[in-house]
């Protein structure tokens, strides 16, 4: 049926010159200049995350070195000479691409060492590209050391890997190291737009943005998602198609979730979860998105520049409005709590239960326990107490926490007595004497038990007390008690 075997976009669009490599200017320029000046190192180490051009750059560099259109290495390989064509096809006899994962033993490296001595048969250089080099065994790395440091003049080694920390320092110090960067959203969008135009695919900007965002800095990821969408869609790739295929949740849903949290409306929250489940979306991804959403709100709230968000403008506007309804402390706590949830969610028995339980917990608790608001209320209370000029229940309740200064003076005379007897227990003496003293008469006289009770029921008091226990405790109270 499929006579002509389909070649995926990522392979069809593999860059053939340095100018086509996206988002790695710092590397392509260096390499081109090195080739132009004839200062070619004999060992390169390409490091970077998945799908951003390591293998591609290695192949292009091989072409630069061996292109026969000029009589010396050129920064712009022609792409048409025999060498260029065969390197692109992977069949050049002097460019040896080795899969480091499958050829990782000392034996394999010894073979390289044997062969590297032979002069290239048709080209200027013999280029060894060792991909996934982190998989070489320690012994294999060591066997490579001498060759890597002083190879014959016709040999060039290019090592490529995603995991720099697995490469021995002795190898790294013998190579010119190049760190590939993740590609920014704008570069990715420009590339995707170019591919779309060339392939004759219509695609909205919004959709491209969503694809670029989902690719998370990987060019191959972006191309692979685009490839999939081209297969999926009939005429035009729309925003909705991207969301359907990737299983993302529209940001409006996240806003209604925020609204539900603010209104303490459990039913709304549960309904949102129900809808997400019913539409067949993945709850782990959904939780990730909630986390990202709160992170974005936090970024806005902290007044950081908007380009940190990398969001479309309409969304930023809506977010700014939403951020105003939360305090900084609330957002930090929300981010913390959802981060904790996502970290263990994959192995949970029932992801739905875990998410719902957290949402219910959040909705039932008053979110408004920021330090600022508590301090504000504290100040208010003090003013109130001064105006009344009567013993407020506050000191009575606080007895358990820091002892009032008056309490200390009656205790002081007893302390030296004990210190005389036992110098060792000086520190402890003060402590025990405090507990020894029964509630000072002067204090307890004024406190009426009913007053204490009333004080405890006052939300302001209980909030203050909780603050003085040294931490902000979750305060369970009805929302209408709030001012």
């Amino acid at each position, binding site marked *: *049926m499929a006579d002509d*075997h389909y070649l995926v976009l990522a392979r069809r669009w593999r860059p053939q010159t340095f100018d086509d490599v996206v988002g790695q200017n710092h590397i392509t320029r260096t390499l081109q200049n090195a080739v132009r000046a004839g200062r070619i190192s004999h060992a390169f180490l390409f490091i970077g995350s998945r799908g951003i051009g390591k293998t591609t750059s290695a192949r292009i560099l091989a072409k630069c070195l061996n292109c026969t259109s000029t009589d010396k290495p050129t920064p712009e390989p022609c792409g048409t000479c025999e060498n260029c064509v065969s390197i692109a096809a992977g069949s050049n006899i002097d460019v040896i691409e080795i899969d480091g994962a499958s050829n990782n033993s000392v034996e394999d490296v010894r073979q390289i060492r044997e062969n590297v001595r032979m002069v290239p048969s048709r080209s200027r250089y013999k280029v060894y590209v060792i991909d996934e080099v982190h998989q070489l065994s320690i012994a294999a790395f060591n066997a490579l050391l001498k060759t890597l440091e002083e190879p014959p003049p016709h040999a060039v080694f290019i090592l490529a890997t995603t995991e720099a920390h697995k490469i021995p320092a002795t190898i790294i110090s013998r190579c010119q190291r190049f760190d590939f960067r993740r590609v920014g959203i704008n570069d990715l969008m420009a590339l995707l737009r170019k591919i779309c135009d060339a392939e004759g695919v219509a695609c909205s900007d919004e959709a491209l943005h969503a694809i670029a965002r989902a690719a998370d800095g990987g060019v191959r990821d972006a191309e692979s998602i685009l490839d999939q969408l081209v297969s999926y869609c009939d005429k035009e790739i729309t925003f909705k198609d991207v969301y359907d295929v990737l299983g993302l949740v529209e940001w409006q849903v996240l806003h209604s979730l925020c609204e539900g949290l603010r209104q303490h409306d459990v039913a709304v929250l549960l309904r949102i979860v129900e809808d997400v489940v019913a539409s067949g979306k993945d709850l782990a991804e959904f939780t990730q998105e909630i986390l990202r959403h709160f992170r974005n709100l936090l970024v806005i709230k902290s007044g950081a520049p908007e380009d940190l968000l990398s969001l479309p403008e309409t969304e930023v506007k809506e977010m700014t409005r939403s951020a105003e309804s939360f305090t900084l402390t609330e957002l930090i706590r929300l981010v913390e709590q959802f981060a904790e949830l996502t970290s263990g969610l994959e192995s949970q028995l029932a992801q739905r239960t875990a998410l719902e339980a957290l949402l219910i917990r959040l909705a039932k608790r008053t979110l408004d326990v920021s330090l600022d608001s508590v301090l504000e209320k504290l100040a208010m209370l003090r003013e109130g107490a001064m105006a009344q000029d009567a013993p407020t229940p506050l000191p009575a309740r606080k007895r358990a926490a820091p002892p009032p200064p008056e309490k200390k003076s009656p205790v002081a005379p007893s302390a030296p007595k004990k210190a005389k007897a036992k110098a060792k227990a000086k520190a402890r003496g003060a402590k025990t004497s405090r507990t020894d003293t029964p509630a000072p008469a002067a204090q307890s006289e004024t406190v009426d038990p009913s007053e204490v009770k009333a004080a405890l029921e006052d939300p302001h008091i209980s909030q203050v007390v909780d603050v003085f226990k040294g931490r902000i405790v979750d305060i369970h109270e009805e929302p209408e008690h709030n001012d």
Partner: protein
Amino acid sequence: MTIFDTIKDQDVPLRLVRNFIKRKRVPNALLFWGPSGVGKGLTAIALAKVLMAPDEEGDQGSLAARKIDHGNHPDLHVLSPVKKSRIIDVDAIDFIIEFASLHPIEADRRVFIIHEADRMRAPAQNHLLKTLEEPLGKSLFILITEHPQLLLPTIRSRCQRVRFGRLRAETVKEILLRDRDVSPGQAEAVASVAEGQMTRAFDLIDTDKRDVVLDVVRRLSEGEDPMAVSEEFLKYVASQKKHFETGVKAAAEATGSPELTREDRAQLRDEQAALVDALCRHDIMEMLYLMEVWYRDVLVYSATGNAEFVLNKDQMALLESAGVSDPDAKIGAVEKSRRYLERFLNEERVFRDLFFALAN
């Protein structure tokens, strides 16, 4: 009716797969991911059939399709985790990589299906990388997994990722009513408890897990001694284990060849024991899942008072009568037991502790 119509509720994956074929855009690497029991394996096999038995999307009787069904098509390679450790090792991957460079024999491409791809150890995944991106011959790799995040990012980025969602509760109910002898009420309750996973729904109907768990939570909420409940529960677990043991042995005897050396027999015994262990473990985890869902219902019902959000829909009477305090903490207790059991702590102790925590 075409072969893909037997797969329900997976509109996006099916549309993708159909278009791959129609537009001749079949990529060389696919990653099917999503919860278990929603049709990933079925779709992979269906895709293989359509690719290998061309122009016969509906004809399941063709020779190639029959060969695929019997697992002896020369161009279809299916890989699953093996042995006690349930690992796909480097040798198994190297074996199929060899095949990937060979010309297909009967069909016009080779198809490789790797079940539970996340069980490939890191070296195995690394071996696969180059072949996955640029296979020498014509081939299609389909990786199937529940946990894509356990795969190397370099593997994930080389595949087109196809997401399979959970089935709708109505679909699960329909299939249950079609394939099993159940009442509509029971089917509905099981469908919503199963969270859109067909294998789980069948399991809940075919075994008495759900009754056992509901009995446990009822008795605990009525204030019965957790010690007694846990002892009875552990007895049930032990009886299930016996049941699995006899089942596995019978299955082995039915297919086993008589000519075995002593080492072979020892290895066979090991593998059988591992299989029984895995079955028991799965059973226990499922029961913990049911407990968690129960306390989730209690929590949700007490927070909203709305029966619509409840999953155990046939147990409303029990739900209203059960006075359970702090269901949130109980969900946490169940989750904690899950973690303990995953670390192979003593089952008896874990369950006794759990039941004390669940008692009011």
